[in-house]
Every structure is written in C-alpha cells, then in structure tokens.
C-alpha cells in the first residue's frame, strides 16, 4: 500500500484552493487598508498553497508539528514570491514594503492553518468514505465560515469606513479605506460632529430612544396581563385566541398605512410622536403576547396556586410570583420590541414631517439626497446601528432563548 493516498491528493487540491482564496482575501484587505492598487496573484497563490499542502500533508498527522507548519509557511512565501515574479500582491515589493511583508506572512499563516485544520487527524494515506467526507465537509465549512463572515461584514465595514472619509477621497479612489489617524480626533470624526451640531441628530437620537422605550413600556403593560389570561385562565375562546393572536402579526403594515395616514391626518395625529406611540404597540403587542404566553405556560401552576391559597389576589399573584419568574422572558420580549420600534421605518417615514419629531430612521431618510455628502449618510447609519446592535449583543443570550423557546417550539 502506498504511503500517500486519497487524503493526500484531496488535501493538496484543497491547499491550492486555500492558497487562492486567502491570496485574494488578504490582498483585498491590503488594498482597503493601504489604498494602493494591489492585484491578487491567484494562480501564484494557488500554486504556493498546493506546495505548502504537499509539505504539510506528506507527514502523518501526528508529526505535523508547529515547526513543520512553519516550514510549510516559509515554502508558501518563497513559492508565492517566485511564481508572482517578486510581486506577491501585484506591485513591486519595494512599494509599501513593510505592509506587503506583513500581509504576505498573514496569508501564509492563514493558508497553512486552514490546511492543517482541514486535514487534522487524517491522512496522508488512503482512507474510507467516512474520512473523505469529513475532510470535504471541513473544507466546505471552513470556506463557508470565511464566505459568510465577509458577506456579512463587508457592508458594515464599508459603512464605518465611508463615514470616516470625505466625499472627494471617496469618489477619487473608492477602494481606499486607509485611515489617517494623524489628522486628529475632530477631523476624523468630522461627519459625526456635523450630524450632531448641524443636522439635529441629537434630537433624533432622543426621539428614537423615547419612542422605543415608551413602546416597550406600553407593549409590556398590555401584553403581560393578556398573555397571563391566555396562558392561565380558562374562558371561552381561549384556544382560539392563543392560536390566532399571531395572525395579527401577519397583516402587512403597508395595508394599514393608507387608512391610518388618512385618519390620522384628519384627526391631526399624523405629525406627532403620539401617533407613532399608538401604532407601534399595536403591531408589537400580539407578538409579545404570543411569546409571553408560551413562557407563562412553562411556569408551574402549583406556585401560583400556593399563592392563591395563602390569600393573595390574582393580581398580586401575577405581580409577586409570575412576573419575577418570567423575568428572562420579559427581558427578551422587551429587547425584541425595542429592536422593532428602533428600526421601524415605514410609519416614521409616512407620519413625521417636522424635523423636531424625526426619529433616526426618518432623519437618515432625510440625509439620503445628492446634496448631503455620503460620509454624512453613512455616519448617520452608524449612529442608528450602534445602540441597537450594542444592546442586542449585550443581551443576546436572553433574546435567543426568548425568541426560540418562547415563541416557536419545533
């Protein structure tokens, strides 16, 4: 039996693929960071990756030590330099020399580590279908992680970077996302400062916060008693309600917007925050009620019955026993409702005309014109995104359990 088998051959193909992938990605990263016109050397990268995989996967898996990986990495760098004619990123090595050096080393590390993890515990000999599948799936998953990360992060990356540039630079070289830290804090964050001083973003931020928090408060105030009734009390129509409440959530907002616009216009409620505070809870209460009743059902009824036996009224049972137990669910519902209200665009856009009443979504829509420079628009987008994203990531665990356990049980 030959020492080298299918695992080895598949691995060097993957090595070539990793070489190409990481060369492209790191070169583009270098391009964004430096603003220089780098060109990814895909074929050279693939060739070097193939060779690096050959060196690493030649050895049985228990002998692929750190030193061997370093050798493979070194081989990758040398071959990349040779195959690309000493232009590993499409530019003479002398331009941006230190940067190129760092990025080439980075590429080598990524390539070798990728090959190493995909081939871990496998090879280099012939193996059964099981291990071949494991190898291929590892490659696909690794590639998927990289692809997903880039696809998700790119718009956010562009958003942040554009907000720190200025219009001339953006138009002259749209790929230059290098940041000049030497220009000082106020010059770097010029767009943000201008938004707050000249474009009333302080007011918008306050309005958004006010509307979102008030929506959460109103929603919980209405949904908690409703959810408790649906979950615990027996009454005709209980089953129907608990099944159909979510149907309200299926009604498209766009169908409601014309009648609400017409009626609110005539009542003089259209251009007010009160109007929004009337509409938002109505759309969030059904889903909050549905999520909460799912959680309330999970709380043992015996605890409440004990409270009733001890002479508490129903209302006191809810306040003193049920709610403290349901705190995680309340937090997740509150967060979810906050997210909906903070991000809501349609009604804010249709209802608000007065600059003093704008929420962030409405304010950004106002910036979306050719007269306002792009960096302002993106700075506005960052201002709207950061609070809700920070809050969400901070309480992510709550939200995930609340969303999944409370609402839909599959």
């Amino acid at each position, binding site marked *: 039996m030959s020492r080298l088998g299918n695992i080895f051959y598949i691995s060097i193909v993957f090595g070539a693929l990793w070489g190409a992938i990481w060369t492209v990605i790191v070169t583009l990263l270098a*391009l964004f960071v430096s603003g220089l016109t780098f*060109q990814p050397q895909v074929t050279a990268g693939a060739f070097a990756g193939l060779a690096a995989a050959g060196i690493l996967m030649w050895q049985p898996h228990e002998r692929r030590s750190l030193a061997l990986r370093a050798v493979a990495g070194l081989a990758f760098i040398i071959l990349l330099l040779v195959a690309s004619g000493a232009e590993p990123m499409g530019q003479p090595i002398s331009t941006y020399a230190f940067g190129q050096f760092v990025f080439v080393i980075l590429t080598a590390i990524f390539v070798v580590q990728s090959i190493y993890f995909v081939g871990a515990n496998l090879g280099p000999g012939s193996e059964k279908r*099981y291990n071949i599948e494991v190898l291929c*799936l590892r490659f696909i*998953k690794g590639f*998927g*992680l990289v692809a997903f990360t880039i*696809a*998700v992060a790119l*718009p*956010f990356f*562009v*958003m942040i970077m554009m907000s720190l540039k200025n219009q001339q630079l*953006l*138009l002259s070289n749209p*790929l230059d996302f290098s940041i000049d830290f030497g220009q000082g804090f106020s010059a770097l964050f010029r767009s943000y400062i201008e938004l707050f001083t000249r474009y009333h973003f302080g007011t918008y931020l306050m309005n958004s916060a006010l509307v979102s928090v008030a929506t959460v408060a109103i929603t919980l105030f*209405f949904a908690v*008693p*409703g959810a408790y009734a*649906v979950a615990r*009390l027996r*009454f005709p129509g209980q089953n129907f*309600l608990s099944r159909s409440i979510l149907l309200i959530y*299926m009604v*498209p*907002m*766009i*169908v*409601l917007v*014309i*009648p*609400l*616009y*017409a*009626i609110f216009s*005539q009542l003089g409620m259209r251009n007010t925050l009160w109007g929004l505070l*009337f509409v938002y809870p109505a*759309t969030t*209460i*059904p889903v909050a*009620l549905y999520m909460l009743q799912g959680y309330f059902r999970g709380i043992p009824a015996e605890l409440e019955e004990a409270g009733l036996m001890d002479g508490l009224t*129903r209302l006191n049972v809810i306040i003193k026993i049920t709610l403290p137990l349901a705190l995680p669910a309340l937090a997740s519902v509150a967060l979810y409702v906050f997210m909906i209200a903070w*991000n809501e*665009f*349609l009604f804010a856009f249709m209802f608000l005309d007065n600059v003093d009443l704008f929420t962030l979504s409405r304010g*950004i829509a106002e910036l979306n014109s050719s007269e306002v420079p792009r960096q302002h628009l993106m700075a*506005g987008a960052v201002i*709207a*995104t950061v609070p*809700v*994203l920070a809050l*969400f*990531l901070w309480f*992510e665990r709550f939200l*995930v359990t609340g*969303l*999944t*356990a409370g609402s*839909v049980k*599959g």
Partner: protein
Amino acid sequence: MSTSETPPSGPPKGLGPLAKREMRFAYLLLLPTFLIVLSVVLFPLIANVWISFKPVALADLRPPAILVNERLMGKFEVAGDEADIRYRARNSSRKSAITDVVFTDTVPDSLKILTVNDRCVATGQNIRCDLGDYAPGQREDIVVRVAAMQAFIDAPENIKDSDPEFTFVPENILTNGEFTFDNFKRLFNASDFWTVLWASMYYTIAGTVGALVMGLFAAQLMNITFGGRAILRGLFLSPYVAPVIAVALAWVLLLDPGPGGTLNALLIQLGVIDGPISFLGQRAVDITILGFTFTFPVALTVVIIFEIWRYFPLAMLFILARMQSMSTDIYEAAEIDGATPLQQFRFISLPQLMGIMAVLFLLRFIWTFNKFDDIFLLTGGAAGTRTLTVNVYEQAFALSNLGAGAAVAVVVFLVLLCFSVIFFKFSPEDDA
C-alpha cells in the same frame, strides 16, 4: 333555596360562578389588547377596503375650506359717496361640498351700510349672511353697498382690518356616500399589473427559500465549536438586528455604479468586469448559455440577495436552537453503525429539522411577501423591482391617489389570505 333540595345529577352544565368570575377577569385582562388591536389593525383593514372604493386623492385629505377675497369697489371722495364692498367666496375643494356656510364681518364705524345681499342681515355695523351649501368649486360674490361718512374721509380705514369670518361644515371625503370601481378597474387594466404580481412572487419565493437554505448552512457552521464562535454568531446576527435603512443605504453605496461605488471599483480592479454594472438600476440582461438565451432580472435578483442577506440570521437562530436540543444518542448509534457525516445529516438531522423549517418557511413566506422597506430603500421600485407592496406606496403617495393605493392593498391582503388558507390546509397540525 328550593334548588338545594334536589341534588344535581351528573356534572354541572355551563359555567359555575367561579368559572364565570375567572372568565370575566380574563376578558378584563385582554380588553386593552383587544381595543388597541381593533383600532389600529382591524379597523384600518376595513377602512382600507372602504377607501379602495372611493375616489380619494392625497390632496383631498386636507378638509375643504372657504377662501374669501374682500375688496372695495369704487372710491370715496367726499362724504356721502357710495361704493360696494365685494366679498368673493370660493369653496377651495373641487371635489367635496361644504354645507351650512355662515358668513360674518364687521364694517368700520365710519361707513354706513345701505343695502346688503338678500340672504344677509345687517345689524349695526355687523353683517351676517346665511349662504347655505356650496357645491365643489362653487364661487359667489356677496356685495354690500356702503356710504362714506365724514369721519371716513377724514381718517380712511382699511376695510380689510376686520377679517370676514366663515363657519361651515366641510364634507368629509372619507365618509361621504360617493363610491367608484375606478380604482380596481384601473389597477387590473394597468399594463404592468401582471409584471408587478410576477415580481412579487419571484421575490417572495426566491427570498424565502434563499434565506432558509443560507440559514440552514449557517446553522451547520455555528454548530461546530471553535474559538471566537460567540463573536461570529453576534456578527452573523447583525444584518437582522441593524436598522433596515442603515444597511439598505450601505448596500446602495456599496453597489453604486457611479464613481465611488465600492463593489464596481473592486470588480474592475480584479478584472472581473470591464465597466461598472448598475446592480440596482438595470432591469434585465440577456444571458446565452449553450445557445439558449434567457433574460436574467438583475435588479430584482440583487434585491433578493439583500433579502437573503438580511434574513438568513433569523432562520439560522431557530434552526440552531432546534439542532442543539436534539439528543446525541441517535448520532452515537449512527456512528457505531458506520453512517458517514453526510448520511447522518441527510437521514437524522434533516428529518428532525423539517418541522421548524416548515414553520420558518410559512412565516418567512408571508413576511417576505409583506416586505416593503427593503425594496423601497434599495430601488424605490424601479428597474422591475416593483412588488405589490411597493406598488401600494407608488399609487397612494407617489402618484397621490389614495384610492388606487388602497385597491392594491386590498389585492395584497387577498393574495395573503389565499396563501394562509393554502398553508393552514396543508401544514401539519402540531407545527402551526
């Protein structure tokens, strides 16, 4: 008293007093929710149907009013000269009538009222006219003949100093009895109705399936343990959490075909394309593969990719939660039996995930169909991306025809109703 003597046979029928109290308490707790949902969701739904049968334009929402122009016709030279004060009144609306119009004004003390219009009465310096009803756009002159006294010649006053006042009952365009089928006729006769419906269906189906498949894939990735998984999961969820306007506009700038568009500049730099592609502005491109030429909708596909990008995290979240609640025993057993990873996924994981996938498909299908903001912010409905929901906005607010918009909204709701009926008929009981 007498009932207690005959013991009841069998279980009690109807609700006992305790059960009744519980019922009343439950209804009391649900009442506020019921009222707010009734007023903001159910009532507008019905109001929308009502509006769809009415010829209402956006401008008609401003209630009609009486506009008046006051003018002195003639000149006062000496005391005793006569002239007319003419009030030219007009119904500002060309569509709705105004009823019970009453007009009052005060003439300066230094002018003497001689004659007034026959529907008017002059008491002292005050004039009051009952003008009755004004048809849409009707105009009328009210003439008051006055004579100047010496005081006016000495110190002329401007007759406009006292504003004429009107009281009236404007007809409400929303509640009057005028109905029409024009909105629906125009909607179904419009040449692009079927295009819009087709774009809506393509967007909904491709967006839903794409988000589900990507969510399933992402869930597989997140189910393996590695350093930094929590950070990546937070990152993967952020498209769903970030405000739609922020991410949509970031995409618009990213895909911009003009100078400054990142993706086009990137693709040109990489040599993938020769010139910039207008991703969000190009309706379709002809692609020839193996001699077959078919039309590929560019902008619509990009909008769908955005939809997938934004909503795969939701599918990922639910599928991941389901996967982590699966028992590991069955996988261990499969390992021993020699099932490969793909076989395990195909025959163990996938069947267990079908339930949650079906629920997600249902929810996402309806929500994607309802989606408005995303397309509106990306393309505004241009370049073949006008779905039914964007058409509602287009008709009602861009073309200022509320009635026509409401008619489209009725179609949206009817299509949705069809979907719901189909789904609930064919979906398994326990999942929905």
